[in-house]
Structures are given as C-alpha cells and as structure tokens.
C-alpha cells in the first residue's frame, strides 16, 4: 500500500494536493480541474508569501502582522480539517487545543519573565522563553489532552461527538476563566515575545516567516499522512467504518491518532498566536473560536488541503474589511455563512478550483 501513485500529471504542481478518495485507491476518478487547481493553490500560497514580504519592505508592518494572523489561523484550521474533513470527526472543541497551546506559551513566558519556577515539586521546572521549548511542551500537553478527550469522545458518534467535544472545550474554558493564578478571565500578557536561537523573533517579517513555515509544514504533514496507509484507513473510517473493520483494521485507534495529530497542529498554531499578540486569554478557548475555525474550514472547502488556507484568508479579510465598515460585521458573516452552507457546499476552493470529492 505504500506506492500510492500520484495522479497522472506532468506539471507536478499539486502532487501534494490530492487527498481523500482519489488517492486512497478506493475510487479512481479523472481530475479534470487538475491544472486549474494547481494554479489556484500556487497563487494562493504565493500571494500569502509575497504580499507580506513586499509590505515589509514598503514599511507596512500592519499588513505583515495581518498576514501572520491569517497564516496562524490557517494552520489551526489545517489541524481541524484533518479531523473534520479527512477523518469525518466533527470536533466542536478545537479552541481547547488552540487556547492550551497559547497558554503554554503564555505561562512559560510569564515564569521566565518573573524568574519564578512553574513548579517545584517533584522536580523543579523553570519557565522558558525559548519557542523550541514552548512548542515541544505545547505538542506534549495538547497531545495528552486530545488523547484523553478523544478517548472518551470517540466512543460516541454523530451529534453526541459534536456536543461532547464542545462540552470538554467549555470545561477547559471555565477552568481558565476561574483559575486566578494566570490572570483568570483577564488573561495573561506576554511582555517579551519568546525567542528562537539565532533569530530576532520581534521582527515582524521574521515572525511571519516562522508562522509561514509552520503552516507549510502542517500542510505537508497532512498531505503525507493522507497518502500513507494510515490516511487510506482514516478515509475508510470516515466513509464506512464497518468495511474498515472487516478489513481487519479497527477504526477507533485510527481515528484517535488522527484526532491527536489534528489537536497538536491546532495547539502549535495557538502557541504562535499567543506570541504574535503578546497576550493569551480565555477568549482563545471559547466555543465561538471553535465555531469560527469550523466556519473557516467549511468556507474554504472541507477535506481539501488548501481549503483551510482559502477559508482563513477569506475570513480574516472579511473580519478586517467588514469590521472596518461596521461594528456589526458578524451579522454579515452570519449571512454569508448561511448562504455558503445552504447553497455552496464546496466552499471557496470548490468554486475556484473545482470539486474534488465525489459527493
């Protein structure tokens, strides 16, 4: 099963962009939109890279930071897309991992700034202002939390799964809200952005490039994963878990692993987001954010590699443009979203680059 032949193509543009059914050997369907899709993807990623670089050298730091924001939100959505789009697990609680990653960055920086230990028993653990440490801890903590939440939630399906993931995220939210040590509902400022050896992370462009690298890495991992044997099993778990079980593969561990990876990607995005804003608060954990992440995944096109990126660009642009015009911009977001859900099921990428899955 390792030789997952890429679709016949001669451009090589979107070798990494054909997830789901077409790749898993379950259905072979000619992809008529191949060149168009590859073009749209290259343009999308290229613009995301070039616009902030140009803005930086023209002196518009605001746009560089806006691009960092888009990139981080897109990365969080890439994580969620792995669960919803590829795994069919409609998690309504991914804000929990996003916020947890953020709090790892915030709490670590807080202790490093104050020279106080995070804990003294059983071992002395100091804070750290190194992003590498923060990321590593964020990965571990998010993986453990997702393992616990996933292990319970994945025993259920359908509406139960949606509501349980929501409820667990709310649990973390209320915990952060009422735990006074790290600011409670006021949140926790990060006075000095965490650093990386040899890099000036306070430079807007440097930070954008770090985020961009994170996004590309997350997309590459998703793409590799979905081309592997594991990805084929995950696709089958979504389409028909009885058949997967008949083939001798238990769907539960497959789903659980995918859920954990998905949470880790979203959690890392959260750590980047906290450092970008220099602030972490329970808002990052709120169910509104979980909802917005789902909106981004759907707006972009569910189960498509570039969908989250397209969705994030659209969402943040709408937020910035409409938010500049009216303070009630979410009303219009609601109307657009309603329209997309009711009438345009395949999202922006479906519209720009053609349909991908046979639905």
């Amino acid at each position, binding site marked *: 099963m390792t030789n997952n032949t890429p679709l016949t193509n001669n451009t090589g543009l979107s070798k990494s962009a054909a997830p789901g059914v077409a790749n898993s050997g379950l259905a072979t369907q000619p992809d008529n939109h191949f060149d168009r899709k590859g073009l749209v993807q290259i343009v999308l990623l290229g613009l995301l890279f070039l616009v902030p670089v140009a803005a930086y050298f023209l002196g518009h730091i605001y746009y560089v930071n806006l691009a960092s924001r888009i990139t981080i939100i897109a990365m969080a959505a890439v994580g969620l897309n792995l669960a919803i789009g590829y795994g069919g697990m409609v998690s309504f609680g991914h804000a929990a991992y996003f916020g947890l990653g953020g709090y790892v960055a915030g709490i670590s920086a807080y202790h490093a700034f104050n020279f106080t230990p995070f804990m003294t028993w059983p071992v002395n653990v100091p804070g750290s202002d190194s992003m590498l440490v923060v990321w590593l801890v964020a990965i571990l903590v998010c993986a453990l939390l997702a393992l616990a939440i996933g292990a319970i939630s994945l025993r259920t399906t359908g509406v139960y799964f949606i*509501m349980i993931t929501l409820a667990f995220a709310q649990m973390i939210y209320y915990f952060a809200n009422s735990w006074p040590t790290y600011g409670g509902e006021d949140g926790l400022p990060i006075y000095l952005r965490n650093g990386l050896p040899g890099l000036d992370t306070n430079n807007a462009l440097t930070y954008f490039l770090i985020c961009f690298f994170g996004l590309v890495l997350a997309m590459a991992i998703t793409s590799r994963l979905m081309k592997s044997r594991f990805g084929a099993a995950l696709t089958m778990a979504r389409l028909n878990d009885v058949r997967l079980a008949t083939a001798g593969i238990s769907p539960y561990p497959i789903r659980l692993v995918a859920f954990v990876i998905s949470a880790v990607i979203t959690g890392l995005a959260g750590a980047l987001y906290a450092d970008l804003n220099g602030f972490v608060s329970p808002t990052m954990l709120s169910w509104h954010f979980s909802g917005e992440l789902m909106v981004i995944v759907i707006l972009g096109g569910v189960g498509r590699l570039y969908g989250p990126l397209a969705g994030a660009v659209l969402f943040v642009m709408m937020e910035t443009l409409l938010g500049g015009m009216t303070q009630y911009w979410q009303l219009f977001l609601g109307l657009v979203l309603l329209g997309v859900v009711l009438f345009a099921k395949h999202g922006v990428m479906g519209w720009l680059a053609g349909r991908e899955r046979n639905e």
Partner: protein
Amino acid sequence: MSVTLLIEQLLNGVQLGTMLFLMASGLTLVFGVMGLINLAHGSFYMVGAYATAAVTASTGSFLVGLGAGIIAAALVGALVELIVIRRLYHRPHLDQVLATFALILIFSEGTRWIFGSSPMRLSPPSWLTGFVTLPGDTRYPIYRLMLIGVGITVSIALYFLISKTRLGMRIRAGESDREMIGALGVNISKLYTLVFALGAGLAGLAGALVGALQSVQVGMGEPVLILAFVVIVIGGIGSIKGALFGALLVGLVDTLGRVYLPIFFRTFMPPSEASGVGAALAAMLIYILMAIILAFKPKGLFSAHD
C-alpha cells in the same frame, strides 16, 4: 446555619435544574423528532428575554411581558424553521451546526443593533419580590420559588401534552419513525414547524424568567445553551425523561459544587488558594460528571435513539 445553607442551595440547584429543563426539553424534542442539532436555541432564550423586557417596560405588567416573550420566541422560532431550518433536516450534522451557528451570529448582532450593547432592565414584579420563611428558618426569595413552580408545572403540562394528546401522539410517532407518519397522512412539515415553535417558546419562557433574575443582554443564551447540551447528552438525546433527570442532576451538581468545593478545600488548604482551586474545579464539575457518565453509557442515561 449550615442546614439553612444546604436547604437554600438545594433549592437553588432545583431552580437552575427546572430552567435548564425548559431549554433542554425543546432541544431534545427537536432532535428527537427532526434529527436536528440546533445551536440557535439559545437565541430564542435571548429573544424571549428581550421581548419580555421591552413589553414589560412599555406596559408595566410583567405577566403581559412574559406572555409576549413566549409568543415572540415561538413566532421567531416558527419563522426560522420556515425559512432556514427545514432546508437542513436532510443535511449532515456538520451543516446543521454551521447554519445554526450562523443564525446565532445573525441573532446576536441583530439584537445588538436594535437594542444596543448595554443590558436591558427587567426585574420581577413587586408581588413576587420578598422572601418566604421555609421550615428550618430558611429565608428564600419568592421569585426563585415561583421559578421552581413554573418549571414543575411546565414539566407536568409537557408530560400530558406528549403522552395524552393527539399532537403528542404524533410527536412520539415522529420520534420512532419519521417516514411512516408522513406516509400515514400526517402533515409532517406542519408538525415540524409546530414542534420547533414549541421548543422555541419554552426557551423564550426560560429566558424571560431567568432574565428577570440575572440580566437581559446579548449572548445571554450561550452559557445556558451549552449547559442544556450537557443535560441532553447526559440524559440521552431525544428523551424528555432524560432531559428532566439530566437537568436536575446538572442543576444540583453545579450549584452545590460551587458552594461546597471551596469550603471543602479550605479544610486543608490556605483560604486564598482554596477558593481558587475550589472555584476552578467547581466550574469543571458537570463536565467531569458528563465524562464519567459517558464513559459507562456512551448514549446517555435514557437513550431514545440508537
């Protein structure tokens, strides 16, 4: 003193439970009959509270306001069902979640647009303010006692509606086999609109009653909505009996946990830390309860659907 506190908190727990039941029964009915997950249920709660506040302010009568609140919520519910919700019955749950999430955004921002961001004033009528003295020298607000009474009355009425009337028979039939009752000549779309409006009206009633106790503001329905989700997940989605049991359980555990956990931690921790740990743990208590129940019964306690 501590017996008084216990009685008072038990009553508070039951009061929260009955209000949660008003929310959860609508949610669980809509899911049971139509198979729809409705996040916008909290918006009807908010609509009920705003309509009650506005009408009470202009007529001066809380009862008239309350009636207007219920009717407004039910009408808005029926309208939303006709325009949006009925396109979603055959869609996957993901679409339902997103569309109703969109409705929340529209309702919340729309309400903010019309009524402004500051909370509206709504207080219980003068004949419902004051205290009663219960056995054991517990002084308890009349209004909260009234809420418990309303909750119990509505529960009984709902029981009769569902088990004794023709509408209830159709609802039960719809829960067990949607296609069949359509085939038997029941006007399904009318039934759906009616059930949805009934649920919305109950949510509006809860919103109006609780709004007079707390405050009437944008987003007031969201925490309640999530509690109601916990309730119906614990009780078993689609089951009214489960919703009642789950609502009381969640109401009691949440209320008692918030009072007694900090007290408990104070017995072996310094007070400042104890209140922090206690409060944080109390906030998580019902979710932990839910996790434990689901670990043993993944379909909830009184599952109606498989």
